């Protein structure tokens, strides 16, 4: 067990953005001056980065509140928390910078930025969660607070999409809650323990908590337990866009403003992943699940999602939507890796979390930039984009290649680990079927991402007149790159995606340590 060190500093990264965000929303007259908001947001993000760094460096845990006698809310910082929190804060900072420029065109910036900050606070809280209940609390709050980001534009579609997002998330959360309730029943409100808490009792078909690690629980039947775990997987999988509850993703992303889509698909989907990790590796424990029907079905679902997401993306004409489907598919890579319950696959999965986060953010920001600059959303219309914005398209291309998994870009590393892990996992048919699906999906990824590059740089003659005609006045101007506020983050993210691919050693080492702890 952990040494109880009450580390109040853990609270700061959570409270600060939330407070500032609330202030932006609530304080009257805050929106009179745009500069004031921007300053507040950027300042907060920077301070937040510092605070988060401090908190992560300090580590430790903190009991927030005794909700009831048995249920406590607590924070605890471990490797996973560090990974996710760092990722979150970093991405948030970059996207924040980007959105300063992007949001100029949108209305009601005040609300956007207010909730943007609040979501950050909540996400950090989610990353820090020390037990399932806390996780659940922040999970729900995340859903609710991120809702305004999704329906920011308040068009009919946006509101509908927002509600869809909301209901899928809430449904997922309540599905997961069932499992949480059952776990509580088995072992009480335990903090996360690497490797999980649950063991199978010999002979009786019951499961119980591990000796010496829980209190006040009662054994339950294994069937029920597995069903509950499955519910949690599916439920949290909703956020991660896993198959049965993936429907919100392609609807919600395109309607949201680009920064929102970026963080949604880059970070918020990962919170689903985080929840799954917490459940499987820190609460339930991979040992109990290995070889059960839950694992089988889970693998099946992830693979299905991977394949389906790619296929749908391949057929999708709207860029943002295509990226959203891509997210569906890519996040399921991560889930697939997790579902292997194998350490290399675990490393692959976690690294894919990081890489996909960077890559997908870059891609979405690119798409957003295109929209800001040209107002185009369909891939078909973007022919010849490279002539106007070669840098942007270049970044896009790099990110796309990384996502496809072309070495030396980062995607390759994570996929490699995933494939190796899968082959070594001993899960029967999945051990080879998984990598095959991943490969096919990678091909599809290339198929849906690269056409933009090709058409952008090499528009060819087909339809050029059309394009010119359509562009009207915009046509003649040769170079029209987005502003520095936009390009900066994109460049940083792209560079990150590339560099991590080239030098993955440190990250992988850290991840392997983590994997060793949980498996």
């Amino acid at each position, binding site marked *: 067990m952990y040494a109880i060190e009450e580390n109040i500093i853990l609270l700061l990264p959570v409270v600060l953005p939330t407070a500032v965000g609330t202030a932006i929303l609530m304080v009257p007259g805050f929106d009179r001056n745009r500069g004031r908001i921007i300053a507040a947001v950027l300042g907060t993000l920077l301070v937040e980065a510092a605070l988060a760094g401090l908190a992560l460096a300090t580590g430790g845990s903190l009991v927030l*509140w*005794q*909700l*009831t*006698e048995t*249920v406590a*809310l607590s924070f605890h910082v471990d490797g996973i928390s560090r990974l996710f929190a760092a990722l979150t804060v970093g991405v948030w900072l970059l996207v924040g910078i980007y959105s300063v420029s992007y949001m100029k065109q949108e209305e009601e910036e005040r609300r956007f930025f207010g909730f943007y900050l609040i979501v950050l606070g909540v996400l950090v809280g989610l990353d820090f969660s020390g037990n399932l*209940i806390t996780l*659940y*609390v922040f999970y*729900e*709050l995340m859903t*609710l607070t991120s*809702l*305004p980001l999704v*329906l920011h*534009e*308040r*068009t*009919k*579609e946006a*509101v509908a999409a*927002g*509600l869809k997002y*909301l*209901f899928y998330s*809430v*449904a997922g959360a*309540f*599905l997961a*809650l*069932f499992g949480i*309730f*059952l776990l*509580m*029943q088995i072992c009480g409100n335990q903090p996360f323990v690497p490797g999980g808490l649950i063991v199978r009792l010999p002979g009786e078909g019951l499961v119980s908590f591990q000796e010496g690690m829980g209190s006040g629980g*009662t*054994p*339950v*039947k294994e069937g*029920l337990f597995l069903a509950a775990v499955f519910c949690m997987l599916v439920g949290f999988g909703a956020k991660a866009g896993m198959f049965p509850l993936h429907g919100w993703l392609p609807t919600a992303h395109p309607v949201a403003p680009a920064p929102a889509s970026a963080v949604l698909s880059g970070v918020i989907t990962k919170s689903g992943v985080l929840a799954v990790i917490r459940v499987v590796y820190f609460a339930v424990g991979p040992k109990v699940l290995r070889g059960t029907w839950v694992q089988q079905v889970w693998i099946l679902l992830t693979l299905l999602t991977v394949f389906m997401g790619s296929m749908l993306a391949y057929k999708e004409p709207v860029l943002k939507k295509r990226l959203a489907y891509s997210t569906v598919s890519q996040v399921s890579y991560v889930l697939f890796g997790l579902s292997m319950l194998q350490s290399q696959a675990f490393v692959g999965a976690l690294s894919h979390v990081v890489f996909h986060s960077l890559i997908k953010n870059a891609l979405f920001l690119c798409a957003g930039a295109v929209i800001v600059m040209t107002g185009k959303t369909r891939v078909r219309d973007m022919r010849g984009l490279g002539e106007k914005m070669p840098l942007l398209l270049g970044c896009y291309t790099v990110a796309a290649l990384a996502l496809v998994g072309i070495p030396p870009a980062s995607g390759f590393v994570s996929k490699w680990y995933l494939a190796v892990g899968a082959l070594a996992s001993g899960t029967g048919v999945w051990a080879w079927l998984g990598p095959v699906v991943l490969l096919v999906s990678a091909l599809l990824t290339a198929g849906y991402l690269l056409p933009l590059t090709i058409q952008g740089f090499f528009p060819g003659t087909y339809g050029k007149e059309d394009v010119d005609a359509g562009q009207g006045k915009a046509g003649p101007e040769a170079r029209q790159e987005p502003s520095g506020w936009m390009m900066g983050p994109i460049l940083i993210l792209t560079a990150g995606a590339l560099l991590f691919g080239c030098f993955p050693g440190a990250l992988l080492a850290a991840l392997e340590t983590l994997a060793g702890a949980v498996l």
Partner: protein
Amino acid sequence: MKEILLAVPVLLPIAGGAGMLAMHLGTGGKNDDRRLMLLTAGLVAVNSLVIFWLLRFGTGAGLVLFRLFGNLTVRFELDPMGRVFAGLIAFLWPFATLYSFEYMKHEERKPTFFAYYVMTYGVTSGIALAGNLVTMYLCYEMLTLVTFPLVLFPMTKEAKRASRRYLYYSIGGAAFAFIGLVFVLSFSRTGNTDFIPGGVLNLEAGRAQRNLLLLVYVLAFFGFGVKAALFPLHGWLPKATVAPTPVTALLHAVAVVKSGAFAILRFTYFSYGTEFLRGSWAQEIVMAATLATIVFGSTMAVREIHWKRRLAYSTVSNLSYILFGAAMMSPLGLAAALSHLAVHAFMKICSFFCAGAVMHQTGKTQVYELDGLGKEMPVTFACLTVASLSLMGIPLFGGFISKWNLVQAAFACGSRSDGMMSESAIALPAAAGAGVWLPYVGVAVILYSALMTGIYMLTVLVRAYFPKVAVGDTGGEEGGNCRSQEGRTKFRDPGWMMLTPLLIFAAVILVLGLHSAPLMRLLAEIGGEAG
């Protein structure tokens, strides 16, 4: 001497209300209005104070007010479970009264309204303080009687129909509850119907006629369940929302329906006793009924577009949470049921009051009319947000706590059935079969209902906070809506008399969500005693 005070909270408002009716206060002048309000406020406040005094200083033994017939006495006693309910209503009523002062400002026939309003307080206190089943039954019937003028109050055709329906349902329910009363009386161990934790049933005699008694239990459960809006008998509740909002809120979210639930709790845990019922087919039936109600209520709430009716359907489903707790027949179940009873009261009264505030300020009753009001009435909708999230069962809000308790109790109940199955499947064939899965199904149902709650409450909020804007030609049908929004006058939050209760209830929900330990400890004690 102290015991006499027990009768005060019951008799004082009833007498006061009757007096108000008799005095023919205020048909015109402002002075009259003020007198009426003073009188009402005084009665309610004094009564609440008395109840709090009783809660604080205890009461000693029960008080036998008079002997109705044979062993049937009208007896008041303040036991722990009664305390919870009494405290609840004593807390809610003054604020609700405050709210209604403003709400009813422009209505006619105020004296009638307030007279019955005050009388209802007395009768509900009577239910809380009832020391035996007969008194409970008496107050239960009287409750029907004093609340039906309130439902009838608008005097529209709809209201008449609703009140008639309400009356028929309630009386019908009481008729079946009466069967239960008679059987308890006849099979009582003590010869009377006093509430004793663990029940008064004579188990030897009961065993001989087990099936009969179980049948009667089911009948009585459904009988009391009418007030608690159990599924096939819920019809009156959504209709009764025609009443003025303070009535709907207080009566149909708190007093009346909670009285039904409370009566079932009393009947199950203090009259029949769980020992007799546990694991029987009767338990399965009632549990299945409650689950069906939960599903039904939440689903209907999603379908409903009239806001108050939607809330009423939500009440239908939430009440069955309580009944589900009751049907578990375990200490945890009782504690959970009571906690939901308390928490739901705050949540639902808060939501209803918000709805009422909106109606009062804007006259809007349908969900689709609420677009954009969140900005204009921020306080109201903030409170509604709190209430909604709590209803959904988001942690940090009160609703989560009670759901948490319910689910835990359900799991405990389920695992107990498991245990029973493995240990004594032969001894208790009744316990075998599908029944053991019911608690788990219950958990699933609760979560389903939570999802539905999310849908029906959050759509309101989303509408209010994020009104759709028409973009180009996409929002064809929204266009008109949008224009009308431009042209209309701004609405504002209601006055302090309405806002104060809202804020306080919202605060209480938060407090209950964050710091519920003392309450839960109390409830667990009650549960442990009675289960």
